[in-house]
């Protein structure tokens, strides 16, 4: 799992996450994301196109992060998921609680 900072403007911050978010890497993902959102922008967009795998441990991290962002009156959008990752979000109903967009451009609007 790796988080890559793709830059920010006044309102939004674009990140890309790659690799696997499983039971082994989820704690590190959550820790790094918490540090990023501590000095966060209004809108956080995460490019998921290079994320190959996510398990419930990773979903738990996304839930924790989404709740923190909401508490700070911000918003998180996820975009460009690969099919297997998208399937996990859909089965668990997470696509209904965290906005999922097809492309980065769509998410930045």
């Amino acid at each position, binding site marked *: 799992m790796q988080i890559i900072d793709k830059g920010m403007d006044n309102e939004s911050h674009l990140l890309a996450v790659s690799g696997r978010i499983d039971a*082994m890497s989820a704690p590190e993902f959550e820790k790094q994301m918490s540090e990023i959102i501590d000095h966060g922008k209004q809108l956080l967009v995460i490019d998921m196109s290079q994320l190959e795998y996510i398990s*419930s441990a990773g979903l738990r991290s996304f839930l924790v992060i989404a709740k923190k962002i909401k508490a700070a009156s911000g918003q998180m959008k996820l975009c460009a998921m690969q099919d297997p990752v998208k399937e996990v979000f859909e*089965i668990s109903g997470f696509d209904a609680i965290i906005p999922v967009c097809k492309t980065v451009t769509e998410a930045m609007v």
Partner: protein
Amino acid sequence: MRLIDHITLPAVLTNLPKFLDMVIQAAASHGIKGKRIMEIELALEEALVNIFNYAYPDDAGGDVTLRCLINNDGQLQIEIEDQGRAFDVLSVADPDVTADLNDRDIGGLGIFLIKKLMRSVSYHRRDHKNILRLTV
């Protein structure tokens, strides 16, 4: 029923990749590929992490045995056995996957994913062992 491969290792998270590798290879040798491999990995991770976290509450810990078999219908079957405290994953209620962000709880989601992704799941308690069978 034909045994393809098996492995026994201590029930600790750092052994997760070794368990997964064995099953991925067995699945590949059975002609399974692509997204289905990831779904097997996911179901297996969820089942194993439950065991790592809850089966052996004492410091002494314990082992997990994984067996990959081909059943009489030619389907891949993964058998996960531990000697920890009795725990029937099928007794866990499904989570509310429609709850909104504020009310969403993660409990039970791993087991829910196993049930959704595998063809069938069965649990047996025998000789002080938990035996979970996932049919792919």
